[in-house]
Structures are given as structure tokens and as C-alpha cells.
């Protein structure tokens, strides 16, 4: 039982307690804040496991960005303030969920403990920034580039999804040269059906789309 063992036990028990409270709390905002606690102490766990850069990324991305996103989503969906009983499913389903969670824990923990045995120790790690950086930009450079594409796609998709169908703001298909008639949604505001071949200038029904991008005014 070394000092590192004690530090690890502190961080790990905090993370486990935070995770359990995050999934059982009857208070929506508290659940998100327990998630902050769990993910933040996971950064400490990474530090003890000699993965410094991972710990920093965990703090930056998870604690910094993801939790803020979750809190914003709670605000925007008008999450109820205070203790609510309707956050959880019915008791029967909760029992099934608890059984499934316990079974998952037992399966993963049992497998890992049986595989690791009692002899293994964590060696002094090499999670420094220079080791990780050179690994990322030599052997892992293709997955790294793919990740940047994935992030860009997720960004564009999130904007495209949450933009909704606003009547006033021009949609993507409105910006396409010549084609506005593909949107067959009745809810859109400018309900006057634009002519299918629409190089025609500014119909009076759609004054906000006065000038087509193809220059016909």
C-alpha cells in the first residue's frame, strides 16, 4: 500500500460515487453536477495512472465542454428545477436496469480481475506530452486526421439539426442557385410555392429572397 495507492483510492472512490449519484439523483441539475465530479476525479485517476496528457484532455473536453453542453441542454429543454419523481422510469423497469447494471459490473470486473490476477503493477508510464505527441503525429496521424473530419461533420450536423425550420432564415436549399422548390414542408413560412425552375427574380411572395445568388435581380 503505497502513497499512490491511497491517492488512487481517493480519486477512484470519488469518481465511482459521483457516477452512482449522477445516475440516481432525482434532481436534474444535481445529476449533471455529479457528472462533473465523476469526470473530474477521473482526471485524477488518469494522473495516478501516469497518463498526464489524457488527464489534461479529460479536464479540458469533458469537464470543460461536455458538461457545459449538458447544462445548456438542460436549460434549453426547460428541465424541471427541484426534486422530481418522474425522472426515472417505473420501479419495475428500474429494477431491471439495476440488475442489468450489476450484471455488467460483475461481468467486466470479474473478467478484468481474473485476467489481471494479483501480480500486475502499473509500471512508470510514459504519458508525457512529447511521447504522446510524437505517437499521435507519426503512427496515429491518419486516425487523427479522420477525427478532425469527424468533428467538423459533427459540428455542421449539430448546427443543421438544431437550426430547425425557421421561416425567415434561408435554408441550405434556398442558397443553392436556382432551386427553392424542393422543400415540401407546409410549416415553412413563405408558403407560396416557388416555381420549380426558379431563376425568376423576386416573386412578391418571398421578399426576403430578393436576389438570387446567380445574380439575376
Amino acid at each position, binding site marked *: 500500500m503505497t502513497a499512490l*495507492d491511497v491517492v488512487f483510492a481517493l480519486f477512484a472512490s470519488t469518481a465511482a460515487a459521483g457516477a452512482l449519484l449522477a445516475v440516481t439523483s432525482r434532481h*436534474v441539475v444535481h445529476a449533471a453536477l455529479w457528472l462533473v465530479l465523476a469526470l473530474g476525479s477521473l482526471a485524477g485517476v488518469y494522473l495516478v495512472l501516469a497518463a498526464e496528457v489524457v488527464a489534461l484532455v479529460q479536464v479540458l473536453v*469533458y469537464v470543460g465542454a461536455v458538461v457545459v453542453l449538458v447544462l445548456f*441542454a438542460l436549460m434549453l429543454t426547460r428541465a424541471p428545477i427541484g426534486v422530481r419523481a418522474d425522472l426515472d422510469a417505473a420501479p419495475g423497469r428500474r429494477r431491471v*436496469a439495476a440488475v442489468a*447494471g450489476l450484471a455488467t459490473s460483475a461481468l467486466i*470486473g470479474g473478467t478484468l480481475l481474473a485476467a489481471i490476477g494479483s501480480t500486475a503493477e*502499473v509500471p512508470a508510464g*510514459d504519458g508525457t506530452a512529447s511521447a504522446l505527441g510524437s505517437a499521435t503525429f507519426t503512427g496515429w496521424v491518419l486516425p487523427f486526421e479522420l477525427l478532425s473530419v469527424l468533428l467538423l461533420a459533427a459540428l455542421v450536423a449539430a448546427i443543421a439539426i438544431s437550426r430547425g425550420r425557421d421561416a425567415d432564415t434561408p435554408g441550405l436549399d434556398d442558397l443553392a442557385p436556382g432551386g427553392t422548390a424542393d422543400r415540401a414542408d*407546409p410549416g415553412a413560412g413563405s408558403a407560396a410555392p416557388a416555381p420549380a425552375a426558379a431563376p425568376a427574380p423576386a416573386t412578391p411572395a418571398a421578399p426576403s429572397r430578393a436576389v438570387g445568388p446567380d445574380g439575376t435581380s
Partner: protein
Amino acid sequence: MIHLAGPALLVAVLAGAGVYGVLARRNAVLVLIGAELLLAAAGVLFVLGTALPAGGLGSPGLLDPTISARPADPLVSGQVATIMLITIAAAEIGLALAVVLLLFRARATSDLTAVRELGEASPSYTDHPDAVTGGSLP
């Protein structure tokens, strides 16, 4: 130098809590919190894999403590995988929260048990959720 049983137990607890959260919650955002916990468990497992001797769980060093040769992995695979996992998780939750927001706009609720079917043909769909919630939506 810490024993590896601790991280393994932590992975198990996090994964179990994540599964419970995904299954037992009704609010869509809280379901996503459970999914985040599952991904965090996977990240700890990746870092734990880096800490194992070369060859992973099948390496002879685990069974025979006298064999301590651990050639350094120049690619630090587990930790790089964890960083990529964190990135993917961030992209995932950004997209998922956008979907939840869209669901709330269309149905004025984020209760997953209240939305039995998706699509505009379903009875709970409304084009004007303002009328349901009585106010301007974000």
C-alpha cells in the same frame, strides 16, 4: 506503482452505473449522462491497457512475475486511443444534444417514454410547440 485491480474495479463500477443510467432514466439528457459514463469507463480501460506489459492480458509477464521485460510501446496506443475516444465522445454528445433539442422543439418534452413514435405522422407531433409550452422556445 499501484495495483491494477483498482482501475479494473473502477471500470466495472463506471460501466455498471452507465448501463443503469441509460436504462432507468426517462429524461433524454440524463440518458446521455449514462452514455457518457459508459464512454468514460472505456477510456479508463484504454489507459489501463497502456499500463499492462507488452502483449496485454496475454503477456507472459502477467503470469510469471520474474519476466519483467516490457519493451516500451512507442505508439502509446492506449492513451492515444483514450484521447480519440474523448474526442469522439465530445462529437457524439454535441450531436445527441442537438437531436434532444430538436425533439423538445417538436414535442415540447424530453421525456423519452412520452414519445412513442417519431416522425411527423405521429399524433404527438406539432409544428407549433409554442402553443404547447406557452412561450417562445429557444
